[in-house]
């Protein structure tokens, strides 16, 4: 079968990832802000007997390699094999988008131009003459809409046609002064029969642009001796003409002039103002100098309120279901050990985690809305001044917010920060943003110790508190480990877009499904392990001695004795011994050994904290075996000050195993992991101790 490999290139936020999603059945991450895609992804599909491989690349404003994500695109385009470039542009802002297109046109690669967002262009009254645009530039042009799914097949046909064609004649025309120099250099190369994989005209352009790779190649060639003075002369001439000695600026101006010429010929816009001012009208409220931040805080507060209030309704059903299910299964298993494994181990462990699905879903919806409406960049704008005081970059906001969902994509998205120091600093702070997996722990404790009215506020306070501690940590790190100059903050603010319900639904569904899958596999396995460690070894002597006592006393005393037996058995189990061993470390924080064990288990995954507590208290519950609901058990077994200290540790200590691995990879070395470990452990311990003591004083 014929194969076509396509590199998808374009400026950020023009809908590249969305375009792939709509021509294949891929589900790449899409969001309405700059820097959603930070890593290349290959998507394969078949069309008209062709095997397409499309590589989704991070968006890049210009063909540069300053930030990691730009480098991914830059290096891919320069070093990898591919058949053609599919250059995606935003129909509603061609002038800016074509700047990159013009740059790509000097690469001597086959290019197809996909003008995306045609639905928005139509709505804004922008008409584009694709045919004429194609004639003027030599680029095959497809007008598409990834959202409305129009023009997609035509685009693919065009790609096949371009792939089959032997060569592409691109017409990129510069000012007279520049053209003159290009002609001179090209003529020189031609005269010396210089041949390379790219045309001599493009070599001339690249030499004038001072493109490093071209320089390096020609530098080793004998013709360089005569070429060099030619270039010096040309450079002088061009910079004189443009009144600038910055060649990048010169070329940007040249491209802009070319693009404006093209646009004047091919684009007809009627009263674009109406629709555009929509975004500005909303902005007038949302980024208002006085009300902007309070509005944002209100949204956050509302989200946590919803998380708790609405989330707790289906929670009761889920809780009920699992108790019923546990009893049902339990009664059908005759072997006591197996029954305990299934009911106390797996079902209560997994159940404790699944219980929080409603909360998680609401949180995910909130994040998806933030990402897809365009509000994300506004908040970055609002908070930049504030962040800056703590030595953070406004754009750090994006990875930090992503961190409220899950730390792993957050670590990845820190790549949008150009400066390595800013990026590292952000990486260290991301963990302070409580991820979705920690939400169950918070909901559990907030629900256990506070009335329903306050629980939502407590959640909000926990999240804000975590973020503030993170900011303070950033400040300290900035003053010590990451000293240095401030990085510029320049960020595009996208249009507000009504998020497609399907898109939100899909993102939330995928994430929720992943959470459920984790509960069914990883968490179930961890629960089994915890169950095993807390049930073995059996102590026949202890059981026997209690058994004889129980027989000799009345029914009432017997039940008390039975519970004491349970507790003692648990304490002499493997896990109990481990717990007792590490307990002294946590005594200053007011933790009993069960909490200490749950914390350690949380290093594997934060949900395991809840499932471990579920298993441990289901087994050794001295209150009442029939007592339903982990919340009640928690509130009866754990003193309030200890609970506060526990929450503080959960907020701060080391992210889960998977996140730690990604952190280490993104930070670029194992030593950073140890720094992170030291930082989070010390901060968590000290603050938890303070919190414990303070609460003891108050309560």
């Amino acid at each position, binding site marked *: 079968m014929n194969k076509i490999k396509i590199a998808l290139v374009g400026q950020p936020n023009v809908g590249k990832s969305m375009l792939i999603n709509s021509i294949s059945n891929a589900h790449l991450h899409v969001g309405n802000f700059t820097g959603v895609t930070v890593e290349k992804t290959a998507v394969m599909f078949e069309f008209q007997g062709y095997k397409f491989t499309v590589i989704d690349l991070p968006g890049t*404003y*210009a063909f*540069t390699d*300053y930030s990691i994500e730009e480098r991914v695109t830059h290096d891919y385009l320069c070093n990898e094999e591919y058949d053609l470039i599919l250059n995606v542009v935003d129909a*509603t*802002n061609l*002038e*800016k988008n074509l*700047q*990159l297109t013009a740059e790509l046109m000097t690469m001597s690669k086959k290019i197809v131009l996909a003008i995306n967002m045609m639905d928005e262009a139509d709505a804004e009254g922008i008409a584009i003459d694709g045919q004429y645009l194609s004639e003027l530039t030599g680029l095959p042009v497809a007008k598409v809409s990834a959202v409305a799914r129009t023009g997609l097949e035509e685009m693919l046909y065009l790609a096949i046609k371009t792939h089959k064609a032997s060569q592409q004649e691109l017409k990129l025309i510069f000012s007279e002064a520049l053209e003159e120099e290009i002609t001179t250099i090209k003529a020189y190369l031609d005269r010396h029969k210089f041949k390379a994989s790219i045309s001599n005209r493009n070599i001339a352009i690249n030499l004038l642009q001072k493109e490093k790779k071209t320089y390096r190649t020609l530098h080793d060639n004998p013709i360089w001796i005569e070429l060099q003075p030619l270039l010096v002369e040309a450079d002088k001439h061009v910079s004189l003409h443009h009144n600038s000695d*910055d060649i*990048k*600026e010169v070329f*940007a*101006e040249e491209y*802009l002039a070319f693009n404006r010429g093209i646009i004047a010929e091919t684009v007809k816009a009627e009263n*674009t103002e109406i629709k*555009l001012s929509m*975004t*500005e009208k909303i*902005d*007038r409220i949302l*980024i*208002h*100098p*006085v009300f*902007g*931040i309070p509005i944002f805080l209100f949204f956050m507060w509302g989200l946590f309120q919803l998380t708790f209030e609405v989330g707790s309704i289906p929670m009761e059903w889920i809780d009920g279901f699992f108790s019923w299910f546990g009893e049902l299964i339990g009664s059908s298993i005759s072997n006591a050990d197996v029954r305990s494994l299934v009911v106390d181990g797996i079902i209560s462990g997994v159940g404790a985690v699944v219980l929080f699905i409603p909360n998680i879903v609401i949180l995910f919806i909130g994040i998806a809305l933030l990402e897809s409406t365009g509000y994300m*960049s506004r908040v*970055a*704008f*609002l908070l*930049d*001044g504030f962040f*800056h005081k703590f030595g953070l970059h*406004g754009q750090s906001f994006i990875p930090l917010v992503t961190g409220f969902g899950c730390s792993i994509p957050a670590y990845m998205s820190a790549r949008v920060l*150009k400066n390595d120091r800013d990026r590292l600093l952000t990486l260290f702070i991301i963990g302070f943003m409580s991820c979705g997996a920690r939400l169950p722990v918070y909901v559990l404790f907030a629900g256990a110790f506070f009335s329903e009215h306050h629980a939502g506020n407590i959640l909000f306070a926990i999240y804000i508190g975590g973020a503030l501690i993170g900011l303070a940590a950033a400040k300290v790190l900035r003053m010590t480990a990451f000293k240095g100059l*401030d990085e*510029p*903050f*320049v*960020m*595009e*603010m996208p249009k507000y877009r009504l998020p497609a319900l399907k898109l939100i639904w899909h993102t939330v569904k995928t994430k929720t499904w992943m959470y459920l899958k984790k509960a069914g596999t990883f968490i179930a396995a961890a629960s089994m392990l915890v169950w095993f460690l807390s049930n073995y070894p059996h102590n026949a002597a202890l059981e026997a001695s209690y058994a004889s006592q129980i027989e000799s006393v009345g029914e009432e005393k017997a039940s008390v004795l039975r519970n004491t037996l349970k507790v003692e058995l648990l304490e002499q189990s493997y896990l109990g011994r481990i717990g007792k061993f590490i307990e002294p470390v946590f005594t200053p924080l007011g933790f009993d050994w069960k909490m200490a064990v749950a914390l350690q288990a949380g290093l594997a995954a934060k949900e395991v904290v809840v499932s471990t507590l579920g298993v441990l208290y289901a087994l050794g519950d001295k209150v009442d075996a029939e007592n339903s609901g982990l919340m009640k058990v928690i509130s009866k077994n754990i003193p309030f000050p200890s609970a506060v200290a526990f929450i503080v540790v959960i907020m701060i200590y080391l992210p889960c195993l998977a996140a730690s691995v990604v952190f280490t990879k993104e930070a670029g070395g194992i030593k950073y992991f140890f720094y992170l470990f030291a930082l989070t452990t010390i901060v968590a311990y000290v603050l938890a101790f303070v919190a414990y003591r303070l609460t003891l004083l108050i309560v």
Partner: protein
Amino acid sequence: MKKLTECKKGSSCTVIKLHASGPLKQRLLSFGMMKGVRIELLEYSATKSTVEIKVGKMRIALRKEEAELIEVEINE
């Protein structure tokens, strides 16, 4: 010499020269900010530490320090 930060909210100006260098200049250029281009000033943040401008059809947020590197002429 007038800086971009001297423009009032709601007013417009024309770029005379970019005093930035390196990656920042590259970024500004790729946003279409170069001499002769019209800029509209949309909003300042509360402490005036950040500013939102409009270049062509694009809205851009800049910090004061960066905006000061853009020399402009205020339009009538």
